[in-house]
Structures are given as C-alpha cells and as structure tokens.
C-alpha cells in the first residue's frame, strides 16, 4: 500500500486503540490522583468488564445490539461494585499505605484472574458487535483533472470501530462534566487536593475513596466492553492494558486529567504509526525506551505539577 493510505490506516487504528486506552487510563488516573495508590489489579477490572460483557450477551441472546447495550450498563456497574467492595474490605484496612497496597492489589490480581479461569475458562471467547460494516475509505491523488478520489486496495475501516471512537469521546465529555460541573465532582477534586482539609469540611473521605475506586474500575470495564467485539474476552487480557495505562498516567502527569487524555492519545496513536516506519518489535523497543526517557528527564510527566 502506498505511504499515504498506509498512514491513514495506521492513524485510524491508532485512534481506536487510543479511545479504549483513554477510558482505561482515566480510570487509573482518577484513582491515582485522588487516592494516591497504585492499583496493580486495574487490568483485571478491565478484563472483568470484557468477561461480564460476554456473560450478559450470551444470557440475553437475540440481536447482538440488545445484549451489547445491556452489557454497556451492567458490566461497568458490577465491576465498579466489586472494586468498591475491595476498597472497603482491603485497602481501607491498609490505610492506603503505598507498599502494602501494591502487594494487596497483586494478591487481588491473582484472585480475580484465577477465579475467572475457574469459571469462564481458558478460552478466548468472542462477543458479536451490535453492528459491523466494512467501510472502504477513499484516498486522494493528483490526477490530470486535479484532485481525484480513489479507493485503495485494503484501505478500510469498520462502522463499529468508528463507533468506539465516538463513544469514547462521549464518555470523556460526560466524565469531564461530572468532575467539573457536579457536586460529586467537586467533592472528588477537593479530596484530591487536600484530603485532610476536605475531611475537616465534613466530606466523608472514606466513602469518597470507595466511590472513586469503583469509578476507576468501572471506566476500565467500560473500555473493555467497547473493545471486546473487536478483540475477544480472555482471562489474561488485563496485562497489556495495565502496563499501558500506567505509562499513560505517569507520562501525562499525576493528578492531571487533561494530561492523561493527551498522553493516551499520544501513546495510542504512536503505537500504530511508528510501526509504519519500523519493524514492529523494534518499534516497541524504541517506544518503551522513549517512555522511560521522558520520565527520566521530566519525572513529573508532561503536565504534572511537582514531583510526588
């Protein structure tokens, strides 16, 4: 394929990846920003979203769209509840001590993964998208008569992938409205800025933490429900999103939600585009190393304020 269409294809694919990544890493960013804890089980909440989506769609049957809409609502809700429960039972007890939370969430990771293996099984299972049409995309070239459109071989996307991009944007806007325009959002931001003062003002910090933890997990699950018709539900699928979300959050800067969005877009898009120019494994090597170097020279991330 020629360079132009190839780049466009890579960009579109990158946009899909970035969309899902934005949702997943927003979840982590909110948890990180407000509670200052590292949740190693974040990827497992993502995986649970996909697995639960499969259960919901299988149970409901009928037209895939029905099951899918139900899954969009049910899965994040359930995962959020599970997460909030884990917070109440485990993390609160640890008083959110950094090291202990890491260990506890590693334990939680094993528990969730193994339970899923025992119930859902080791196979990767597909979920049908609510709709899916192949859309051939045009490209432009300079012909004799000026600009002309043509349809390059292989340059295409699907209607569902476009939907994912749109859906992620909608959710982001909703999230932004929630955080900046509602009382709950205000409480979250207050707790993030200074939890002691917030508590002095009568904010139930403990309950806010549970809610935030649940919200973070629910966002990851939502991302997974959106992506599962493109990929499959598999009990080990949480590892990559965990890694990527962490990278995004740190690069974007702790406690900076706009930073997270920018970093997610950057990393999601670049993953696809770099592979146009370099062999994929080499591309991954470069990308990983670059991420590390960004942090080495600017530990507070791109948008972060001061070091923690």
């Amino acid at each position, binding site marked *: 394929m020629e360079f132009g269409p190839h780049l466009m294809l890579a960009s579109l694919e990158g946009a899909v990846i970035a969309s899902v990544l934005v949702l997943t890493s927003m979840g982590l960013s909110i948890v990180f920003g407000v509670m200052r804890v590292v949740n190693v089980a974040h990827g497992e909440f993502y995986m649970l979203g996909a697995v639960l989506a499969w259960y919901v769609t299988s149970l409901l049957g009928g037209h895939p769209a029905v099951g899918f809409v139900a899954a969009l609502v049910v899965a994040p809700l359930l995962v959020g509840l599970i997460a909030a429960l884990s917070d109440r039972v485990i993390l609160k007890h640890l008083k959110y001590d950094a090291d202990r939370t890491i260990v506890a969430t590693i*334990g939680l990771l094993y528990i969730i993964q193994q339970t899923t*293996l025992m119930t859902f099984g080791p196979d990767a299972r597909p979920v049908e998208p609510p709709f899916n049409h192949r859309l051939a995309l045009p490209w432009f070239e300079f012909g004799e008569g000026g600009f002309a459109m043509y349809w390059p071989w292989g340059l295409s996307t699907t209607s569902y992938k476009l939907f994912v991009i749109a859906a992620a944007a909608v959710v982001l806007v909703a999230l932004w409205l929630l955080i900046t325009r509602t009382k709950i959002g205000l409480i979250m931001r207050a707790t993030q800025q200074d939890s002691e003062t917030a508590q002095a003002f009568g904010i139930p910090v403990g309950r806010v933490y549970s809610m935030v933890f649940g919200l973070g997990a629910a966002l990851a699950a939502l991302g997974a429900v959106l992506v599962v018709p493109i990929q499959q539900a598999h009990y080990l699928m949480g590892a990559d999103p965990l*890694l990527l979300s962490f990278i995004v959050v740190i690069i974007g800067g702790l406690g900076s939600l706009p930073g997270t969005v920018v970093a997610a877009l950057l990393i999601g898009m670049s993953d696809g585009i770099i592979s146009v120019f370099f062999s994929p494994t080499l591309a991954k090597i470069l990308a990983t190393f670059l991420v590390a170097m960004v*942090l080495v020279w600017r530990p507070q*991330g791109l948008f972060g304020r001061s070091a923690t």
Partner: protein
Amino acid sequence: MTVRRKSATLHLSVLAALVALFFILPPYHSGNLSRIMVLAIYAMGFNILFGYTGLLSLGHAMFFAAGMYGFGLSINLGGAPLPVAFLIGMASATALAAVTGFLALRTTGVAFMIVTLMFAQTAYLVVLYFGSYTRGDEGFVIQSAERMIFGIDLTTEGARYVTALLLFSACFLALARVIGSPFGRTLVAIRENEERARMLGYDTGVHKLKAMILSGLISGIAGAAYAMLFGYVGATFATVQYSIFPLLWVLLGGAGTTIGPLLGVFFMFYLIDFSSSVTTAYMLVAGVVLVLLTMFAPQGLMGEMRKRVFPWLP
C-alpha cells in the same frame, strides 16, 4: 551478647542448618532447596535496593536475565570456560545496573517504578529482537557437558546443592557485612528520610547508585547460577512476573531483614507446591495469602519477628 555477636551467630546457624538439611532431606526436597537458595540470592539482591534503601524497582528481571544470558551466551556462542562465563554474566548485570542507575535514579517513587519497568520491558524486547542468537522466548539449553568445573559435574544432586549453598553463603555473608557497615546504615537512613540524610552531609545520589549496582550484581549472580545449575536460558525470565516475584518474596519474608528473602522464597515455593497438589487454583491461594499477609502481618515474617520478639534482628 552484643547485637553483632547475635547476628553473626544467627547467620552462621542458618548456613549450618542448610548444610544439615542436605543430609536429612529426601532428594525431592533437597532439590527444591537448591533452587530456593539460588532464587534467594535474587531476592537478597532485590532486598538491598528495596528493603534497605527504600527504592521499589519493577525491573529487576533484567538484571537476573543479564546474568543468565551473559553466562549462557558466553558458553554457547563464545565457547568460554565456565568460570569465565560466570564472570561475564556478573559483569553484564553490573554494567546494566550502572547504566540503569545513572538514568533511573533521577526519579523517585512511582516514576522510578515505571522507569525501571520500562527498562526491563526494553531488555525483554531486545532479547526477542536478537532471536537469532538468543532463540527468544523459547530459549536454549546449556548441555551438561558444559556445566563442569574442575572435573566436577554440576548437574548431580550433590554438586548442585553444594554449589548453590556456596554461592548463597557467599552472597548472604557479604550482604550481612554490608548491611552492618556504615554504608549499609546510611542506606537505611536514606530509606527513612532522604532529605535528612542529605542535610547531614551524605551524598545520597552516590549511595543510591552504589546500592543499585550492588543489587544488580547480586541479581545477576542469581541469574548466572540458575543457568549454570539448571541448564536453561530463556526470555521468560526477563518478563514482568520475574520482577514481581522478588518483590513478593521479600515482602513475605520481611523487607529489610537479612534472613527474610530466603524465608520468603521458601514460603512462597512451598505454598505453591502444596496448594497445587490440592487444587489447580493454587494462584488463588497465593493471592488470598498475600492479601491476608499484607493486611495482618505487613512487615513480613521476619519483620514481624523483629517488631514483636527480637528487636536486634539484622
């Protein structure tokens, strides 16, 4: 008895116990113990940086792998004699630790975690990229014929145990020495409050770098020893989970204690071994144990001992 005497007695008792166990245990368990001792070296290396200096690295698998591949490639591709290959393994890990330290120690806390994680990921991908030499994830075998030193075949049960024990003892005693020295105490001071240590005049940057290099060196020794005694080199050992393992072992056994790492490896090994004979869900058991342990015994086994019973524990 002074603390120093007590510590020395404790350490020597541990080593004596390990010697005795060789004769008491049936072959299955003495074989496990060889493996446990090698992995305990890795845990001790990690403990220097995490338990004593307070720096949590999520990328130590790259040091283990550097030692392993340095050793393995020297023998298989370079035809080097065994002791030379072992030294090359150690040197590789040390060099990698120095470079990593130079770059990563500019960050702290969570950023440090991510940077070390990213470096380790890069190392893993590099191993895969040069698959024509390293055979990538599949790995390669070091034939028994190569694993002989001074005519002694290291692949027999006895020789393997003795070698593991010798390496373990050397690292164990050396590290105990380091911990008891002024350098070691400075590391602890840095862990407790780096600002204050700096204000007292210590060059914390240099101390942290040295700790990182020592930590990497010991981890590399473990990697080279593993390849030498068990005959396999593979990219699996450079993956993230092999960076998580030493964290778990050290936390379970007691971070910042000398015996903690060995106990942590031992405990985790038998926990998995025992529960896997009861159910395939042994990782579930491990997960539950981890959660319970960190909720109710956060200092780890030896750490709790130190807190409640023996305050002098090194």
